[in-house]
């Protein structure tokens, strides 16, 4: 089969690989019809995530058609069109039994601090991902769902991570009706988080980024008030000034490990890999939220230490909520929201790229060229 293969930092190519096989009785093999490149794939692409091995296929956002099932699979049949959450999870461990599907303890030998994620290094379990023609899906009776007939395939694809995570991030912020919410990052997850903040009754939603075309999308898609931090000497002071010098009630970090805005933080994290992530957005979140407020973090960070301003968080009495999203818990409500016309997820898709051109796709997304917000990979033929 054809598959994207990581060759080292900033380098990927498409190669022939063996079609994955059933390795466990509850596995399925899925023929991928749509995949996406996620902002967090860029952390792998840039070599930031420890134990990312050349030869691995990335891709934790994908949908497809069931090609083969293992002997114990009951809930899926060959030919079913399925959407697959980015979490690999067993459904029965201590954490899954409590709904913490993103924290499964039975699927990742390499680390206990993170669950299993498709195509996301051996630190997340060593599973190949969906930027390929076929992918192995463990615990096929638990993770995947059959795509509803009425659902646009691209919307189903975006539900496998970006939309679910953005919606989850807004929930982590614990928004109460009428409150002021700041979202750092106008990438796909930030856009969805901003849009979701309105579902929770926010009174004001402010989005911060440095890419003007993404801020335009935040205004048109997420109905947000926007500011380009590159135009301000100190964005935190500006945010304080526009929030009664008290700060926002809730702030969401939808940027994660490669945040810009501080040269030293960015270079030591994203280029020199001396931090698990550049915590610029997280520190701005801590500084721009009001005392007693909530910071929500679902931007991805690596496992190494990061220079986070915990003193400010402590002294302000903040609540910091965070996790990888347990995707499937979000689906029923989001299905309703899509069906009711509250949002159209694929409004943010800007690039549809054949698998054979995936190296260009990574470069366009990584370098923020051509107005790229969300690139998806489409099967050819």
């Amino acid at each position, binding site marked *: 089969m054809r598959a994207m293969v990581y*060759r*080292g*930092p*900033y380098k*990927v*190519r498409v190669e022939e690989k063996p079609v994955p096989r059933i390795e*466990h009785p*509850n596995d399925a093999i899925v023929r991928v019809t749509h995949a996406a490149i996620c902002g967090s794939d860029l952390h792998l692409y840039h*070599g930031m995530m*420890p*134990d*990312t*091995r*050349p*030869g691995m*296929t990335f891709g934790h956002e994908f949908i497809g058609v069931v090609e083969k099932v293992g002997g*114990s699979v*009951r809930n899926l049949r060959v030919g079913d069109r399925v959407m697959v959450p980015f979490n*690999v999870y067993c*459904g*029965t461990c201590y954490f*899954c*039994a*409590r709904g913490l*599907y993103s924290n499964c*303890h*039975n*699927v*990742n*030998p390499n680390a*206990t*601090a993170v669950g299993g994620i498709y195509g996301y290094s*051996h*630190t997340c379990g*060593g*599973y190949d991902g969906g930027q390929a023609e076929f992918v192995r899906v*463990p*615990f096929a009776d*638990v993770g995947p769902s059959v795509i509803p007939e009425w659902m646009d395939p691209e919307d189903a694809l975006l539900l496998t991570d970006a939309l679910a995570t953005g919606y989850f991030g807004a*929930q982590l912020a614990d928004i*109460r*009706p009428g409150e002021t919410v700041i979202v750092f990052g106008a990438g796909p997850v930030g856009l969805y988080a901003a849009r979701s903040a*309105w579902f*929770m*009754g926010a*009174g004001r939603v402010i989005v911060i980024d*440095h890419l003007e075309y993404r801020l335009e999308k935040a205004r048109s898609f997420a*109905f947000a008030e926007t500011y380009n931090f590159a135009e301000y000497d100190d964005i935190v002071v500006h945010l304080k000034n526009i929030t009664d*010098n008290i700060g926002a009630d809730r702030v969401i970090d939808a940027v994660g490990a490669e945040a810009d805005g501080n040269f030293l933080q960015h*270079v030591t994290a994203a280029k020199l*890999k001396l931090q698990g992530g550049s915590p610029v957005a997280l520190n701005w979140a801590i500084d721009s939220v009001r005392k007693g407020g909530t910071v929500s973090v679902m931007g991805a960070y690596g*496992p*190494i230490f990061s220079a986070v301003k915990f003193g400010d968080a402590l002294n302000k009495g903040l609540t910091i909520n965070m996790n990888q999203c347990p995707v499937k818990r*979000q689906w029923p*409500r989001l299905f309703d*929201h899509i069906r009711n016309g509250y949002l159209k997820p694929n409004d943010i898709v800007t690039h549809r790229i054949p698998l054979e051109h995936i190296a*260009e796709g990574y*470069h*366009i997304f990584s*370098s923020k060229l051509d107005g790229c917000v969300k690139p998806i990979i489409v099967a050819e033929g």
Partner: protein
Amino acid sequence: MPAYPADRPNDPDTSALVERIPGWGVDADPADRPAVPKELPVGPAPGVHWQVPEEQPGREGRERSNEHAFLPPVFGTSTPMGGLSGIVRRRAYRFSEARAAHWLILLAADRVAATEAHVRSFAEGRPDNPITETGVKAELTHHGWSSRVGAKRADNNHAWIDPILVGGPWVAATVVAGLAGRAAVRGARRR
């Protein structure tokens, strides 16, 4: 003397939002949200029909965090360890996830593995191509110049580092190979 009051002087006006924003307030009840409560009442996830997951075969030699009591039943088999990088990785797994050594050694192993992969690509007759594999051609086809120039982008101040990170090792390897070749030729002439 000014002082901060008990309420925000400029509370947002929400009266028109329900008309302007589709779905405004549909999840307004904090208790009625899919991620609330964080932990659900204990029970198997929907779809489960086993008490304990069966074990995936092929467990011998599979590395694991020393914070695990045993190898979990299911695991990825994407790219097993091998070569010099595999030796380095095994060293890393002696340290727990709590130790910086674990992660820093793994990062070092990643760089060793990338070098191994590049060398192997030549031996396998499909050498890595830094032009096609970096996708840098997109600079010409997808507005590389106009996407950056004239825009207030914070990443413009470090974009110059990327070509050095990507191309530097290739240039260095070429120079070293050239010098080694020249030394070998000179040595042969002297003999």
